[in-house]
């Protein structure tokens, strides 16, 4: 801070004399234009002089051996530094990426920071459609009635028979449900009272070769935990990713606090990071929250990964945004991403020698009596998780958050990559002059609502679309909430027009659905941006 103040003072000292010169010329001259031009020229001259000197200073600093990136060696503060937010002390001197754009949707029903151990789900399901890129009818390895242990393979994709999709819990396979076109939608397991695990033979990640590790991960069922960008597909075992990215905070509405989630499982997380660093030719990057109220868990700050700090509103916690600011994805790049709990499961393979599908899931939403965290496993049944916790009938259960989650119901199951369940009110009612004089407060980024007077007000949102779909009219709205060098509206239009080169050029590879979810939320024209983006991604994928 002191450094900054000093620099400002220097800046003032240099420009004060020029100011005095300007003042004199203004008072004595008759032709304002000529004199103001001279004044501008003098200013520019001084500015250039100072800039050259300043850059020489920076070059000198680099030459004398300083290696730190992103640090300002000049005597002047950068403009971004003058307006930089006050960072918490735990960030120390690390460079922080400050993301100005974004919006936090504050909703009621945040999960209390405790685990309700009394909540137990009995049925769990693996849902093939959770894994993007595999055939809708995978080859089944079990039948209804079979007894399975946690970690036993249930099915595989014919294109990649080595990747096993395994049971998250031990128990009896009670149903194999099929959806449209006979696609397998759910493999349902009724869990045993005491869990039995398939014993694994985990190699030592420090000494094992990359091939052995990949083979072990595919066989143990941990491979589907890894996702690959672009396209957000299942990771391709034939690829060596450029880098691996893990975001250690979730900024979505009501999202679980990952510092809380990782508690007690730090060792598994660190082990997971160690394993991942063997899988990539580059580095493993962790995105950390410089805006969090609490100190980030030591599991994140003291692991063997590259740490990057981010300060900003949602979607700063999205791994896609972080990749864009760390090392953006090009058309030929492949990077892998994982969530915190996926890394924990991956690490537990090696620390516990078993497939531990445990998930700390946040039950959230204004329609819950007791929003709280629960301890369960991948694919838990929603109805059982939310038993006796619902306030009203007419609600929507969402696996995931309200922006990019999937609509489900009491018979539905938690999606494979989700660690959150949200319950919101269905807004299927007419509202008299709802567009003009809304009675109930509702989240919005528009200042035409009095929301700006109550910046900390938490909303009880419902699923009403608040208007009908229209053509794109407003511009600049998406940019306001997307902290990336991307023009979302131009990109969406190029997708709708099927212009491949433009889609690639405008950065479709850098985006997945969750990144544009906030843009979709704010859209005045109520356009389905996530759907349009997926359509574009599929088109690009088919083109190869």
């Amino acid at each position, binding site marked *: 801070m002191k450094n900054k103040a000093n620099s400002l003072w220097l800046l003032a000292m240099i420009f004060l004399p020029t100011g005095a010169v300007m003042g004199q010329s203004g008072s004595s001259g008759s032709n304002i234009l000529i004199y103001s031009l001279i004044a501008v020229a003098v200013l520019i001259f001084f500015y250039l002089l100072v800039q050259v000197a300043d850059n020489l200073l920076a070059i000198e600093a680099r030459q004398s051996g300083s290696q730190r990136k992103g640090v300002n060696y000049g005597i002047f503060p950068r403009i971004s530094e003058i307006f930089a937010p006050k960072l918490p002390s735990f960030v120390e001197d690390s460079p922080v990426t400050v993301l100005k754009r974004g919006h936090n949707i504050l909703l009621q029903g945040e999960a209390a920071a405790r685990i309700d151990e009394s909540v137990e789900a009995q049925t769990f399901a693996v849902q093939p459609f959770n894994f993007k890129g595999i055939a809708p009818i995978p080859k089944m390895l079990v039948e209804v009635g079979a007894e399975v242990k946690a970690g036993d393979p249930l099915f595989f994709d014919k294109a990649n028979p080595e990747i096993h999709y395994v049971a998250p819990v031990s128990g009896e396979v009670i149903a194999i449900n099929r959806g449209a076109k006979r696609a397998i939608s759910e493999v349902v397991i009724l869990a045993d009272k005491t869990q039995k695990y398939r014993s694994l033979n985990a190699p030592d990640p420090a000494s094992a070769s990359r091939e052995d590790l990949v083979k072990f991960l595919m066989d143990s069922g941990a491979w589907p935990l890894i996702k690959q960008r672009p396209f957000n597909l299942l990771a391709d075992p034939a690829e060596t990713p450029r880098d691996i990215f893990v975001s250690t905070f979730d900024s979505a509405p009501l999202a679980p606090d990952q510092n809380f989630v990782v508690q007690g499982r730090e060792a598994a997380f660190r082990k997971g990071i160690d394993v991942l660093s063997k899988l990539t030719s580059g580095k493993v990057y962790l995105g950390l929250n410089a805006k969090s109220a609490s100190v980030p868990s030591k599991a994140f700050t003291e692991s063997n990964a590259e740490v990057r700090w981010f300060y900003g509103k949602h979607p700063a916690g999205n791994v896609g945004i972080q990749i864009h600011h760390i090392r953006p994805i090009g058309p030929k790049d492949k990077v892998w991403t994982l969530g915190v709990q996926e890394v924990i499961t991956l690490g537990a393979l090696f620390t516990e020698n078993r497939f531990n599908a445990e998930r700390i899931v946040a039950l959230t939403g204004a329609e819950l009596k007791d929003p709280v965290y629960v301890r369960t496993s991948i694919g838990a049944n929603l109805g059982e998780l939310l038993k006796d916790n619902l306030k009203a009938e007419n609600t929507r259960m969402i696996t995931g958050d309200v922006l990019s989650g999937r609509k489900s119901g009491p018979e539905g199951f938690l999606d494979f990559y989700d660690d959150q369940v949200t319950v919101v009110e269905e807004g299927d009612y007419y509202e008299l002059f709802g567009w003009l004089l809304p009675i109930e407060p509702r989240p919005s980024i528009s200042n035409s609502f009095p929301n700006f007077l109550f910046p900390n007000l938490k909303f009880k949102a419902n699923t009403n679309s608040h208007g009908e779909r229209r053509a794109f009219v407003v511009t600049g709205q998406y940019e306001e909430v997307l902290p990336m060098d991307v023009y979302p509206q131009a990109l969406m239009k190029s997708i709708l027009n099927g212009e491949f080169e433009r889609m690639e050029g405008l950065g479709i590879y850098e985006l997945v659905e969750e990144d544009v979810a906030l843009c*979709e939320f704010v859209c005045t024209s109520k356009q389905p941006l996530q759907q349009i983006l997926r359509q574009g991604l599929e088109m690009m994928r088919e083109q190869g």
Partner: protein
Amino acid sequence: MKKSLLNFFKRIEPDKKKSPFLHTAYDAFFTFAFTPNTTTKGGVHIRDGMDLKRLMVQVVLALQLCYLYGTYNIGQQHFEALGMYGGFFEGFHLKLFHGLIKILPIFIVTNVVGLGIEFWYSAKRGHAVEEGFLVSGALIPLIMPPDIPLWMLGLSVAFAVILGKEAFGGTGMNIWNVALLSRVFIFFAYPTFISGDEVWVSDIHKIKDIGYQSVQYGWAHHFFDWIFSGFGWSTFGNGAQSVIDGYTGATPLALAAKGGWDNVLNVYSTHQMWWGDIPGSIGETSKPLIILGALYLVFTKIADWRIMVSMVLGCTFMGLIMNGMAPDQITADTENIFKFMAVPWYYHFYMGSFLFAMAFMATDPVTAASTRPGKWVYGFLIGAVGLIIRVWNPAYPEGWMLAILFMNTFSALIDNVVLNANMKRRQKRTAAVSS
């Protein structure tokens, strides 16, 4: 109450197949009264409370002060020409009702024609009525002279909506600003009704051999006279009065084009021009009220401040250049164009419709550039080109309408340059990362 209203609406719903037009119209009014009960499907589960209806209505709201003062000013200018009721509150009711008699038909014709076409096209296409014309219909009356013949207005609105908007696919698809298209139609088809010195003050006509005179008042004026006399207030009378000496009806711009800033000051004070006590298009005269509307739009983020600021910058830049090129000594023999160029750049904001165009026309998001850097360029060029047309083109008295339509045409091109730069930047970035 809400329930019975809803039930009533549901009972009178026309059949969609049998009478599509009626159903479209019904749907427009129903969704006006009730936000539909549709819920989100796929994608996000909650939506922002803002929709296009609300957005458009905010613009209409921001225009209300201009409407109020515009209505008053029609009467004010009329009576000022006759040398009557000089003070602001003198004959207030007469000025207001004279204004209403002028502006209401304009408003009604604009919206009946525009909305009628919009409803008809929506019914044809089988989709809901889009809200675009809510704003166009509020803007068009404000940019017309008070004496515009109604058939001409209806024709121009039909032209703008059919060829300017529906031909391109409706709201959100148009290339040119719909309100300005309707004005430019009259401007080129019937130039004498929207330019010159005779059209800006209502109901004052030049009669051969006699000169300027107010017209004979019609039944509407007589009707209000009957009411006013009941209250014992002053009345309109019969009309056909002659104007005060030295009346020209010219706007400040016309005066400036003929003799520079001194010539303007001979007739109007800067104070008058700032507060809007001058003849002109109905809504454009009062600068503070327009600025209030503009600030509201900026605050609600409906209009982009970048366009407004860059437009002011562009106009200032061009004004400074013109000031620099103008000769130092202005004499009576100096060419008029040099006198106009010598008008100090800041006084250009006092004359004409710069602020109105800046606040409500250039910022139309559909026709403006859509990228942030593009908006800076777009606004700056409107400011610069508009002033060039205003000062250097002797045929057109005002420049903003043409400058905005001109830049509307190029906004896609500006965006394209910005997007190409973005694509190049991305290529460089990823190439640097991959290597």
